[in-house]
């Protein structure tokens, strides 16, 4: 899907300081080597299966399907992975690669904390040092994950600049990487940033759609009509889409965080409201003003609260292969509660954006149609914030 320079249509590229160029060139070379290396792949598969708990279940949500009265709904249970989200798929791949490259230290950005926790976990497992950058605002919204990272031996650096959220955590991790390259790998958590990250992270996450395909063919003997996932940077979504891109009969639907609504300034729906730009190493769509100043974005979900989107998604939007829809805070919170009560599954507030789409759209589909929704993570981390949203103070 991407050529040598890491382009997806007009998107992607490597817009980074010269100081980092040799680091990303080396990373690309090593990744291209190890992705074909049998021993590396066996080691990674062993970690994914015997440490992270893959393959994850494809669960037929019978009650939800019946209640909505339309499409047959399956949930891809990435929430059941070790560390509680899809983030571990990518992190185990990158940490193993970093180790093979002789790196001894991992740095990462995190929004909701799920990628930070996954990186801290892999670092603990592989005996590597770990520093996680997290917007100060997010350290408050996701205090439990901050504690988990520290428990796992990572240093958590609260980022106070800008909007003190995910975007600023990415900027700070990039700054740190330019300061210390020789022993450090930047374990980027989404399908964004400079090449080779969007391609490499997508490859590591594509295990999600590889499994969905095998599982649904086993259970139903056919491909789904639609696959649905939430999109911030877009890693669980590209993982969910990737092996279906060539199957034109499968609709690919990405759910963006609309925050308080796409007609307000308090939104993070990049494809719906953004425009073409160049930031954080890539050409893609961004929420920005007419002068290219990056806009402060907002979503109840710290993991989707990002003003850009991965370049492969931008291209899937341009070509019309995938559809991107905005989901508001209210819709996501309702879905968070709905899935908990209907199926006994508490989804991450990020994943609840995809569930919300299913609640709206599944009833419009036929009973003979199949919709697969990826539950990218578990929602324990969000309980206190959702309680607050509903006006209830609870103590973690």
């Amino acid at each position, binding site marked *: 899907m991407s050529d040598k320079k890491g382009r997806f249509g007009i998107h992607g590229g490597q817009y980074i300081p010269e100081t980092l160029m040799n680091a990303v060139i080396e990373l690309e070379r090593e990744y291209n080597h190890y992705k074909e290396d049998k021993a590396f792949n066996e080691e990674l598969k062993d970690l994914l299966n015997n440490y992270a708990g893959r393959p994850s279940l494809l669960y037929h949500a019978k009650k939800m399907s019946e209640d909505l009265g339309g499409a047959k709904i399956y949930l891809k249970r990435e929430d059941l992975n070790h560390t509680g989200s899809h983030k571990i798929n990518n992190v185990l791949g990158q940490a193993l690669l970093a180790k093979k490259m002789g790196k001894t230290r991992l740095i990462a950005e995190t929004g909701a904390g799920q990628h930070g926790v996954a990186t801290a976990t892999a670092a603990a497992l592989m005996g590597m040092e770990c520093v996680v950058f997290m917007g100060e605002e997010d350290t408050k919204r996701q205090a439990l994950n901050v504690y988990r990272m520290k428990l796992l031996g990572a240093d958590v650096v609260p980022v106070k600049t800008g909007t003190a959220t995910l975007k600023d955590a990415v900027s700070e991790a990039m700054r740190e990487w330019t300061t210390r390259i020789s022993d450090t790998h930047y374990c980027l958590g989404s399908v964004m940033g400079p090449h080779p990250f969007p391609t490499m992270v997508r490859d590591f996450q594509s295990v999600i759609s590889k499994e969905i395909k095998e599982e649904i063919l086993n259970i139903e003997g056919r491909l789904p009509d639609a696959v649905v996932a939430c999109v911030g940077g877009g890693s669980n979504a590209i993982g969910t889409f990737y092996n279906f891109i060539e199957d034109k009969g499968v609709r690919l639907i990405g759910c963006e965080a609309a925050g308080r609504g796409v007609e307000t300034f308090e939104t993070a729906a990049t494809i719906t409201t953004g425009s073409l730009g160049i930031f954080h190493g890539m050409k893609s769509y961004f929420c920005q003003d007419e002068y*290219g100043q990056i806009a402060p974005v907002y979503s109840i979900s710290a993991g989707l609260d990002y003003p850009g989107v991965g370049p492969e998604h931008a291209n899937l939007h341009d070509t019309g292969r995938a559809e991107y829809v905005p989901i508001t805070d209210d819709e996501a919170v309702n879905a968070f509660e709905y899935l908990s009560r209907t199926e006994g599954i508490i989804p991450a507030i990020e994943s609840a954006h995809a569930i919300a789409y299913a609640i709206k759209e599944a009833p419009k589909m036929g009973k003979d149609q199949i919709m697969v929704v990826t539950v990218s993570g578990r929602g324990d981390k969000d309980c206190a914030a959702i309680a607050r949203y509903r006006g209830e103070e609870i103590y973690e």
Partner: protein
Amino acid sequence: MSNIKEAFKNGKAFIPFITCGDPDLETTKKAVIEAERNGADLIELGIPFSDPTAEGPVIQEANIRALKNGITTDDIFEFVKELRKVVKVPMVFMTYVNVVFSYGAEKFASKCKETGIDGIILPDLPFEEKGEFAEIMKANGVDLISLIAPTSEDRIEMIAKEAEGFIYVVSSLGVTGVRSEINTDIESMVTLIRRNTDIPCAVGFGISTPEQAKAMASVSDGAIVGSAIIKILAEYDTSAPQHIGKYVKKMKEAI
């Protein structure tokens, strides 16, 4: 080809960096005039960006102060047009690629030409991605300044061969900001660059004292100072220009 080479005809060049609109454009104007009067050979003008990923805390804050006042790229072009009437030394912009891309590279380059900007530094536009911008800049007589970092190694030859105006030699790893020590072997970097081009090399990142500037300029063609000047602006606000003038004089004399 711009006028940048003129900046290197008066001994070693001293190049101060000032963020436009920090704290306001009137102060920026006075600071630039003071800098020129006290020996600055080339002025680097920052167009503020919301998320300056190559900057340390000092210049990040200058960007925030300037943007808080609602300054835009159009305001800055208007400002430069006026400034050009009184400032003779070459001036280059330093900003981020999204600022130029969003404005439209064609429109940006022609405004540079019209207002008298000689070059542009885009720290997040490496050699591999410059194609989209380089030809447009060249057609308007604006030099796209190349950066070479301590990690560039095998890339130096390729970058130097296509470089224009001057080469910005990045003294250290990391982001902009004052450093107590610079340990990079700048001399070897410059030697390698000079094997591939005869355009001047100026060293920046981390320089604040006259001693550092002297040391860096002695192995290159000039010294670039940003954060140390921005600190003066942060401290003295609208009365900073005279202090900047004194500082520039001291630095130019040292090199």
